[in-house]
């Protein structure tokens, strides 16, 4: 019908009329690719990977609280992690699967964030030429990508420091022994620049988490008047618990509460 019409109609010399705008057919894609190709789908990816990473930071923090119980407790906790599902699965297998999963989630989180950032930059190629006066957008929401990048760089350091030990002994005495988790922590956080970086990164992580944890509800569309008022409370509480727990470690080490 559209074709007939265009044939009959004299097409305007310059500005063409609007018609047939909903006729284009989208190319068929697989379910996941189809969802992920949209910005809304990438927000789902952000939210889901965010949940996984939130779960990690929470349990990581709780596990680390063991250091207050002494070296033996935390070292055996590390051993426990390696023995997850053992002897059903070989030692370390489940842990590596979890690590792989986490890494995938992190990559997904970063990729979605990066593509959305590019998209959003393209959506306003010419910026406002006068200063904006934001009404509700806050520091947290507007610095997600920066807080995220700093946390990511901290993560790299943190892995090199306490998992691989490459930088664990730099500027500190002793040798890195993987199983001696307690000693490794004390050695690392005893250096004040490392502790400062640790604290800074965790404060940023808290800011990142607060906006992120709230955003999960929006992005996944979990919205119900019954619990809407609690979404901010949850996000704030979650971020606070993680930050307080994590920041306590370097302070405890520097204050000598946790020592070899």
């Amino acid at each position, binding site marked *: 019908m559209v074709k007939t019409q265009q044939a009959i*109609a004299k097409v*305007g010399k310059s*500005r063409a009329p609007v018609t047939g705008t909903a*006729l284009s057919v989208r190319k068929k894609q697989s379910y996941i690719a189809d969802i992920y190709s949209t910005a809304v789908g990438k927000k789902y990816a952000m939210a889901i990977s965010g949940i996984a990473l939130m779960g990690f930071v929470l349990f990581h923090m709780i596990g680390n609280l063991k250091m207050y119980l002494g070296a033996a407790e935390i070292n055996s906790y590390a051993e426990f992690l390696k023995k997850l599902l053992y002897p059903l699965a070989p030692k370390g297998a489940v842990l590596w699967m979890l690590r792989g999963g986490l890494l995938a989630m992190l990559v997904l989180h970063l990729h979605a964030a990066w593509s959305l950032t590019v998209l959003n930059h393209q959506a306003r190629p010419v910026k406002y030429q006068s200063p904006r006066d934001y009404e509700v957008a806050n520091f947290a929401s507007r610095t997600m990508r920066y807080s995220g990048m700093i946390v990511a760089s901290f993560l790299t350091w943190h892995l090199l420091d306490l998992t691989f030990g490459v930088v664990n002994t730099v500027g500190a005495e002793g040798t890195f022994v993987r199983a001696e988790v307690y000693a490794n922590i004390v050695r690392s956080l005893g250096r004040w620049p490392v502790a400062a970086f640790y604290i800074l990164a965790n404060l940023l992580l808290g800011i990142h988490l607060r906006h992120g944890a709230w955003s999960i509800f929006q992005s996944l569309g979990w919205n119900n008047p019954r619990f809407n008022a609690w979404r901010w409370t949850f996000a704030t509480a979650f971020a606070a618990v993680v930050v307080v727990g994590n920041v306590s470690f370097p302070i405890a080490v520097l204050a000598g509460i946790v020592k070899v």
Partner: protein
Amino acid sequence: MNTILNAKIPSGALHEKWDNYKADAKLVNPNNKRKFKVIVVGTGLAGASAAATLAELGYQVDAFTFHDSARRAHSIAAQGGINAAKNYQGDGDSINRLFVDTIKGGDFRSRESNVHRLAQVSVDIIDQMVAQGVPFAREYGGMLDNRSFGGAQVSRTFYARGQTGQQLLLGAYQQLSRQIGLGGVRLFNRTELVDVVVVDGRCSGIVVRDLLTGEITSHAAHAVVMATGGYGNVYFLSTNAMNSNVTASWRAHRRGAMFANPCFTQIHPTCIPQSDESQSKLTLMSESLRNDGRVWVPKNADDVRPADQIPESERDYYLERLYPSYGNLAARDVSSRAAKRLVDKGHGVGPLKNGVNLDFSAAIARLGRDVVQERYGNLFQMYERIAGEDPYSTPMRIYPATHYTMGGLWVDYELATTIPGLYAAGEANFSDHGANRLGASALMQGLSDGYFVLPYTISNELAPLLNKTIPTTDHPAFVQAEAEAHERFSGYLNVKGTRSPDWFHRELGKIIWDYCGMERTQQGLEKALSELPALYGEFQKDLRVTGTGESVNQTLEKAGRVDDFFQLGMLMCRDALDREESCGAHFRSEYQTDEGEALRNDQDFCHVSAYNSTGDPMNPDLVEEPLVFETAQLATRSYK
């Protein structure tokens, strides 16, 4: 030219006429519909609904709007609601009662057959709009809620908060959008009609101007629908949107479409008064406020004390005094005129002494602030925003303002103008409201015309044209119309005088408002008719339009519209002078009862005054269409 107006009213009893018409109307085979092109100008309620429905049927539709989007048309600003004879409240409503109320409200100056059809299809409108997702107000049981409105003793008004017009327009816009998406409608936005082309007595198409590029192009079609709204902006200050104008109707009129009852313009009693000279438009406050507000002015014209310091004994609650039984709820025209008289006598309130008080202190004392807030909260907030005063503590100031125009292009029963192939729908035609429109009936008429009348009557017109060729846009008539349009717009640019189009518009508005507004006199109208040509002459000599015609130029757009308003203004005054009676909104002070009510003259003026253009709006050619009342009884309105 001596035309005899044939309204083509179908035969049969009044309630059978529409059915009879539909039974006899010629149809176009579904496969042939795509061979016809219909142009719809305007995308408000009437235009969008007509374009969408015609496209659904299979016609090729080209829709034109000067707005950026069809969703912006001024139908959107209607607040109150839409009438329909559903009788959902079981309070005695019926099609016949809606018909009688509308005829009576129009003070017996409308055509029975058209009004009855309007009442008949009103019920279909509600069904259609609900199916489209208009969020009408509901009862807790999920059924539709109704409110009552002026001029009716039943509750038949459907509403969506105070935004009924918006919601209905969005409904029609969505349906139109669907057709645009599917390719059934081609939408030309930001494109304004500048001429209508008539070849061998038939409307063959239109000439339009692209507001973004100034480009003038022609479009040919089998039929053209004008759904271009009313002309209230002739008063400069009105509740109409800034861009509402008469150009489309007027250009059609100049090409041979008759213009009917131009002097029937409605004044709404509760608007926020003008606050300074530079004001650009007036804002309407819902009439529902009069349910709880008391209208008064100080008894002493020189009293400038703040309202709360004027004691009860020195206040004149004039509506309660003059119309004890209706009091503050007297009809629109009656209360408007009472306000005008007191303000004219110097009793007005406010810094410019140009309003009357609408006082809620008694209601707040009686009901409490919370109840008042619940009922009128959003209106109070709107007032506070515009006037900068808190209506909870200071009375609102209100004054009447132009709001709707009952007159428009003359149409017959089929909504066809006197140019074959050219139709007029909605406020642009004159057909249904006589000399005064009832509240909540404008939305009803727009949708009735677009959804349920035009699709039938247009097929009747098109069927015989099957496989006949129509003039294309290279026909000399199109070429000439384009050339005239070019000349017209470059003409405005080339006057290079000293005054802006807005200046002339404001001066024109003052004359029309003073002499052809709420109250008209022979003397005043004659004065207007002597001043208008002089001012128009000045407009043609002293206009200044800056910029060029090749990109967006709102000054140039305005110049064209003001030009047409001038010519319409002359015709309005002519018509008001000719109609030596008072009826509905047309009040000639020479013709009033002892109590100051409108005095109709059914002997001499029970007719529609339709005007043929002679090229000189000062001397149009008047043709009368007699109005015959077979079902409704001619009677005098009373609000005592």
